[in-house]
């Protein structure tokens, strides 16, 4: 058995409110004249990656950025709709850094680190200032001040937004800052380059291996530090709200090089997505949570009631979120709202094809506020809905159903956002740091930008200043070896020439994951999945058909490599879900509930589960980082 990992969180001592400030002062600095001699590689250019690149280049570091897209502006952060939280208290409704911190800890079901979350809440305030300075067109009131809306899991109005395109506007802001640094020669941009391995020299991350998607050429790149900002792994389920290219390969290959994977089973199932239409469905479309500000969720009281919604009288409707959670109502957090929808459908009260849907009704809001106001608030979302379903949400309620949306789990990082591999830093959705077992709405954008604009620029400097490194370039043996490994894997995939398409195997994996590791998980189900996934992996490596060659653009080959990694990650997720014998946040074990609500077990499970790779065909090793709560009282999460 390998040695256990050092999971020291490195959260500084001292009062919560002073930790980050004192840490900033304690960190070592790199002399301005020396910064350009230090090279940092950033993989990914979503909110976390682009903001990190721009900020580090502004400081003077030599930065290289790698993306598999044709442009850094395509990263999936762009699809976030609803908004970004910040503790500005512009609404005078009692918000504060402390309250955002508390809401996030509670929303995450007490499974995140206090120090990290408090810092996130502190940074939220600066993020809004930074974005406005860059020209992000946030919604405004008539007087010219910034507008806010409410989001789930909070009783204050602290979400800043740009119509239903907040992620797009924030990403464009970060992208423009990045493009500026590219034009100044401070960032070397590499598009169409997919990262396929991390290179370690003397136990430190010193570079990466990439494959050029247009030419198939495999090359490696050396640096002093590496940042992975490569997003989440929701596509392990095949159907999710993630973009089609989103994948786990960068973090998975880092895991296999020694970076611990934390809480892989914590996945977020978003309650408001457009229901699945059929077998050929390729992805799911989210309807922003902001809709729950004005939409009311209901199902018929009677089972199997197939009448059109307009014919179901008020008294025959069950507004189940308002009934079960009167103080938060339709703005209950995502995990709770999703589970409640599943329950209603499991009881046979679901609506639409297959009974897999619930209504999100704007009838009352339109009566109260007028159609004009609703159009202003949600017009583009209503258009999206109508285009996909051919139904008019102004006239009949939307049908929604939960779908995989976000992964709270990710590579383990300490307070400095460094993984268990020295020099390898992880930012944004790719790390596990801030959301515990459930992420609150409008907090993903906040975390990505906090990591990139305000945390990494400091902590990377501290790492570089505090580490003695030998200069290396990509002629070093470790680079050549890693390149060869990537080339071999590409060839192996092409040589199988079996009968099944990559997609058909990915879909099958997705069905296993959704069935056994989705909204409700059981010991028996997870054990079944842990048997079925290796068998499917076997099938993949013996019978997949990847057409074409590796010498040019080959989208089947790209996909095959990603699915190969999902086939391993899926199993780890199930193992993590099986070992965590409690229900918390997005992780709901049917064996652990009380009166239909999740039953957390703080005595035995108040820790981060960080899994360590132990080699092919060996069971991964569980490491634990205990979670200590000094400032919040561990309580049963109640939204009633």
């Amino acid at each position, binding site marked *: 058995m390998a040695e256990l990992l050092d999971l020291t969180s490195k959260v500084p001592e001292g009062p919560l409110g002073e930790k980050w400030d004192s840490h900033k002062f304690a960190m070592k600095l790199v002399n301005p004249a020396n910064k350009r001699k230090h090279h940092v590689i950033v993989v990914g250019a979503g909110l976390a990656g682009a903001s990190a690149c721009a900020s580090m280049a502004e400081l003077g570091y030599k930065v290289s950025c790698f993306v598999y897209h044709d442009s850094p502006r*395509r990263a999936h952060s762009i699809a976030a709709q609803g908004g970004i939280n910040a503790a500005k208290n512009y609404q005078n409704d009692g918000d504060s850094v402390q309250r955002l911190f508390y809401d996030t800890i509670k929303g995450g079901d007490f499974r995140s680190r206090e120090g990290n979350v408090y810092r996130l809440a502190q940074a939220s305030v600066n993020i809004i200032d930074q974005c406005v300075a*860059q020209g992000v067109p946030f919604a405004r009131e008539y007087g*010219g001040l910034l507008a806010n809306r409410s989001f789930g899991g909070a009783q204050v109005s602290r979400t800043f937004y740009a119509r239903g395109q907040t992620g797009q506007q924030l990403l464009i802001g970060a*992208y423009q800052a990045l493009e500026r640094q590219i034009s100044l020669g401070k960032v070397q941009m590499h598009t169409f380059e997919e990262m396929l391995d991390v290179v370690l020299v003397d136990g430190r991350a010193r570079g990466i291996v990439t494959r050029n998607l247009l030419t198939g050429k495999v090359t490696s790149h050396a640096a002093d530090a590496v940042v992975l900002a490569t997003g989440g792994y929701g596509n392990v389920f095949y159907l999710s709200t993630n973009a089609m290219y989103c994948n786990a390969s960068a973090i998975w290959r880092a895991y296999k090089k020694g970076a611990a994977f934390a809480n892989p089973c914590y996945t977020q199932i978003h309650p408001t997505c457009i229901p699945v239409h059929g077998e050929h469905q390729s992805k799911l479309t989210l309807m922003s949570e902001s809709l729950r500000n004005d939409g009311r969720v209901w199902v018929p009281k009677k089972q199997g009631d197939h009448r059109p919604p307009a014919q179901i009288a008020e008294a025959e409707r069950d507004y189940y979120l308002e009934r079960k959670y009167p103080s938060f109502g339709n703005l209950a957090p995502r995990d709770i709202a999703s589970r409640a929808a599943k329950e209603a459908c499991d009881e046979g009260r679901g609506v639409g094809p297959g009974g897999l849907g619930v209504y999100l009704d704007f009838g009352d809001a339109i009566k109260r506020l007028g159609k004009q106001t609703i159009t202003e608030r949600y017009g583009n979302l209503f258009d999206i809905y109508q285009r996909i379903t051919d139904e008019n949400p102004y006239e009949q309620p939307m049908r929604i159903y939960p779908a995989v949306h976000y992964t709270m789990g990710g590579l383990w990082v300490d307070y400095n956002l460094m993984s268990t591999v020295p020099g390898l830093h992880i930012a944004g959705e790719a790390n596990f740091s801030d959301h515990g077992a459930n992420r609150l709405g409008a907090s993903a954008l906040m975390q990505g930008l906090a990591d990139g604009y305000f945390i990494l620029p400091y902590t990377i400097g501290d790492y570089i200043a505090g580490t003695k490194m030998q200069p290396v370039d990509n002629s070093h043996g470790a680079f050549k070896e890693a390149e060869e490994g990537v080339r071999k894997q590409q060839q192996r995939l092409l040589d199988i020439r079996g009968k099944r398409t990559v997609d058909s195997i990915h879909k099958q994996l997705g069905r296993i994951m959704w069935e056994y590791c989705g909204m409700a998980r059981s010991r028996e189900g997870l054990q079944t999945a842990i048997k079925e996934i290796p068998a499917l992996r076997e099938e993949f490596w013996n019978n997949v058909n990847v057409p074409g060659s590796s010498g040019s653009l080959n989208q089947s080959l790209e996909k095959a490599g990603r699915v190969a990694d999902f086939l391993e990650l899926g199993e780890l997720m199930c193992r993590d879900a099986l070992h965590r014998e409690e229900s918390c946040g997005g992780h709901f074990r049917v064996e652990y509930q009380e009166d239909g609500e999740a039953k957390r077990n703080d005595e035995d499970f108040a820790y981060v589960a960080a899994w360590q790779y132990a080699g092919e065909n060996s069971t991964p090793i569980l490491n634990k980082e205990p979670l200590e709560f000094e400032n919040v009282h561990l309580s049963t999460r109640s939204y009633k």
Partner: protein
Amino acid sequence: MKLTLKVWRQAGPDAKGAIESYVLDNVGAEMSFLEMFDMLNEQLTESGKEPVAFSHDCREGICGSCAMMINGVAHGPWKGAAVCQLHMRAFKDGDVIVVEPWRAKAFPLVKDLVVNRGSFDRIIQAGGFITASTGGARDANEILIAKDTVEHAMDAAACIGCGACVAACPNASASLFTGAKITHLGDLPQGQPERDMRALSMVETMDIEGFGHCTLVGECQEACPKEISIDVIKQMNRDYLFASVKRQDPRAVAAPGG
């Protein structure tokens, strides 16, 4: 429904391309256009052929990756939608659908329906930003912006950088794309200090990249999945003109952002 697809196939940038025909059966009206392409690619793979390469990612009309000329129309028949938002309800049994890549000198073809739109990034590099390094910003509410102003800026900022405007333009001009960025940033108080430089530099980069000139045909706004108005081109032209007058030799000015 049963469809005949005529799709542009080209093995690489220097290979000779041609239209190939495929018949696809059992296409459902509820499927998206790209799901129909997934189905075609599964069929091709299963019959031992190479699938069609095409750009796509978010499949909800926001990332700007997808790019197809469908029966000669950029993003196909639905107004205000990218290809990924087009559903097969728009077609009927027996239809023949011709699918081609974006065609423009500044978007070199990579393979089949995939083109390289790196030229758009270079236009942004020329000045499509506000210089505001991380850390120095003042409180967000200290900058007052009238609601109408920010809404107008947002209309332009909605651009997804897909390149449909270029593909639809008989001159392959990037004016709608560039005008949208100049309008977004130029509308806002934060964008004023660099406004002149931005217009000069971005417009000149369009020329350098090999985009054509704008003759106000208006095809771009028809094709734009975000329905960005051609008014942004007027704003670009006005900014460019004013800036040119102010600086007699625009080529002598330093690049913005430094």
